[in-house]
């Protein structure tokens, strides 16, 4: 395994050979290089978890080798071996990310203790990098769709937190897919075989919400002709999603916090403490800071829930995901509606890509579903999209500060084309482009 491979870079043959023998006895795969330049060659040919580099070497010294490795993105751990007079340089290397430094003559016990730790760090780094790479290449994660950098980060957090029991607070605008995130956390946790219960706290008046959360005993109130378990009990052994948690009344928040901390509660009208084993995932579309400041969300409850805070980006900030989602919804609704809409007509996809989608993925999904149903030809044309969009098309384009000129131009061209309802000639005139140039740009942007 690459992480158990060690490269010794030292121009002192007796040192390099001796170290190689000692480390091989401990089960490591060891290679040696007699100067920094040869070490660099070996690093390019194979993967090493750790490099033991002498500070003073011909061709390329230990620090130069380390700098070159980092510049090239090689993240093998590096331990610098140095004489006393050059310790400052080695300390500087540590500040720049070298694992450690050792002074000559080596304390072999210390070296032998450091090596497994350094290799373990490399192994963890490598595993994380591979996971990150895998997640970045995914256009699907659980029921979520999207391969933007923003979503890759969300996937990465889900992957990291799912196996734990930590509470998660998902913040994001309406329609961003908070429940899908909660489901993914549940599916990837050890509770996947247990129940997943979702409760929208904003959907119930105070009394009913309490009943929905904790359940009631028979006769607890007028009409309580039977006992009823609440969401806490239903989610026992699984995950409880509390959506719109900031909508909960303060006194219910107190009861909820107590139940959360003690993992036990009483049904309405009940005397018996019921123990539950649940993981709580909360979600809100409110600005959490505002909710805390306005007293809508209790500070102590927030800290209990937001052990892991997770922000779900709005669709307008998810780069190319809009297009992937639009195409996925087109496929899905073709199947559901038994239609054969082949794609998007002129201006439609450009409109989808540049519209701000305030209702996020939910709005896009509804829009495509409607368009598939209404499509009069074998493609979705601009008029098939929700009329509300077209009527409210104010001809504005929002571009974030810091957007590259290239991306800003792309958005401007697409938006203008959509605003012109797919009329090439009109869009070209508005943009001050020739018809040929506009078509070339559109082809480039939509390929």
């Amino acid at each position, binding site marked *: 395994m690459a992480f158990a491979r060690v490269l010794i870079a030292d*121009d*002192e043959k*007796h*040192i390099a*050979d*001796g*170290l190689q*023998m*000692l480390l091989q*006895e401990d089960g490591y795969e060891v290679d040696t290089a007699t100067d920094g330049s040869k070490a660099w060659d070996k690093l390019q040919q194979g993967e090493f978890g750790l490099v033991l580099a002498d500070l*003073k070497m*011909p*061709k390329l*010294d230990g620090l130069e080798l380390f700098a070159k490795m980092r510049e090239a993105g090689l993240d093998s751990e590096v331990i610098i071996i140095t*004489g*006393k*007079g*050059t310790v400052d340089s080695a300390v500087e290397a540590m500040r720049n990310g070298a694992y450690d430094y050792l002074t*000559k*003559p*080596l304390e*072999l016990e210390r070296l032998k203790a450091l090596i497994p730790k350094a290799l373990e760090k490399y192994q963890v780094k490598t595993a994380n990098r591979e996971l990150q790479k895998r997640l970045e290449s995914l256009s699907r994660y659980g029921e979520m769709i999207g391969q933007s950098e923003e979503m890759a980060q969300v996937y990465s957090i889900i992957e990291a937190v799912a196996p734990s029991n930590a509470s998660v607070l998902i913040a994001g605008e309406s329609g961003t897919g908070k429940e899908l995130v909660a489901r993914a956390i549940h599916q990837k946790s050890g509770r996947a075989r247990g129940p997943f219960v979702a409760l929208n706290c904003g959907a119930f008046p105070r009394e009913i919400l309490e009943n929905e959360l904790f359940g009631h005993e028979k006769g607890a109130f007028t009409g309580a002709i039977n006992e009823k378990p609440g969401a806490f009990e239903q989610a026992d052994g699984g995950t409880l999603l509390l959506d719109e948690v900031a909508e909960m009344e303060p006194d219910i928040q107190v009861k909820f916090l107590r139940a959360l901390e003690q993992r036990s509660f009483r049904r309405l009208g009940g005397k018996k403490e019921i123990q539950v084993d649940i993981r709580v995932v909360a979600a809100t579309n409110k600005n959490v800071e505002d909710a805390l400041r306005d007293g809508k969300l209790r500070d102590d409850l927030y800290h209990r829930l937001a052990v892991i805070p997770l922000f779900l980006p709005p669709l307008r900030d998810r780069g190319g995901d809009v297009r992937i989602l639009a195409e996925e919804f087109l496929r899905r609704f073709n199947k559901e509606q038994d239609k054969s809409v082949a794609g998007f007509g002129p201006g439609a996809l450009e409109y989808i890509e540049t519209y701000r989608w305030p209702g996020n993925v939910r709005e896009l999904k509804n829009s495509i579903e409607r368009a598939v149903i209404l499509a009069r030809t074998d493609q979705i044309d601009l008029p098939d999209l929700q009329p509300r969009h077209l009527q409210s098309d104010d001809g504005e384009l929002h571009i974030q500060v810091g957007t590259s000129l290239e991306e800003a131009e792309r958005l401007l061209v697409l938006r203008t084309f959509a605003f012109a309802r797919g009329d090439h000639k009109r869009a070209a005139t508005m943009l001050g482009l020739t018809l040929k140039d506009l078509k070339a740009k559109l082809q480039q942007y939509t390929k």
Partner: protein
Amino acid sequence: MRVAQVWTFSRVALSTSRIDLAAEQGLAERFALVRRIADDLAHELKNPLNAMVINLEVLRSRVRAGDAGAALERIDVLEQEIRRLHDLLDQVLRLLRPEPAGGPAAFPVTVLAAEVGTIAAVLGKLARRGFELRLPGAEVLVLGRREPLRFALLALCEAAITGLPAEDDVAVLEVVAGSAEVQLTLASPAAAAPRLQGALPVAASLLAEDGIALGAALDETGYRVRIVLARATT
């Protein structure tokens, strides 16, 4: 590096007052030189010591495993490293505790050049520059004082090595014995000339007291400094 066969040296000459001044400066320079070289040597001492610590551990493991052949190999390595450590320590002690002053006498210049070469090789290694020593096959005696010559050669070698612009460049110290005189020539690429010229007054002042000639020449093949000594027979 090719050394020119025919070349003209301009003698580095100093007036009496300049000799006195240079001697004073030379003393300060000499202390500074000793400090620099001693630092480098002390740093280099760690390498044989490190090799010994590591190979001693390997030896222990080989003995435990009953592998006599491998153990003997490690003993050879340890012997070599002990010798290297001894040589380096010897050079450090010579620098810090020079031989007592005395009059000119016959001494083996080849041995002195080898000692200087040991130090110069360390300086070259640490500066990542090349150094080469060329000695005649047999021991050669010269007449003079050992210590001034040692420091003059060290000052020149240090200047030549640190003046080399590139890692592949090499400074060469060569001892050539004639019937009546012995030439010690330090050759380097022309780019090292400014640094070497800076060391010339110190070297000249060290040698002037014994009337030893020092010359320098620059041509298309490089920069050379030559010291000419009277050969002794016994």
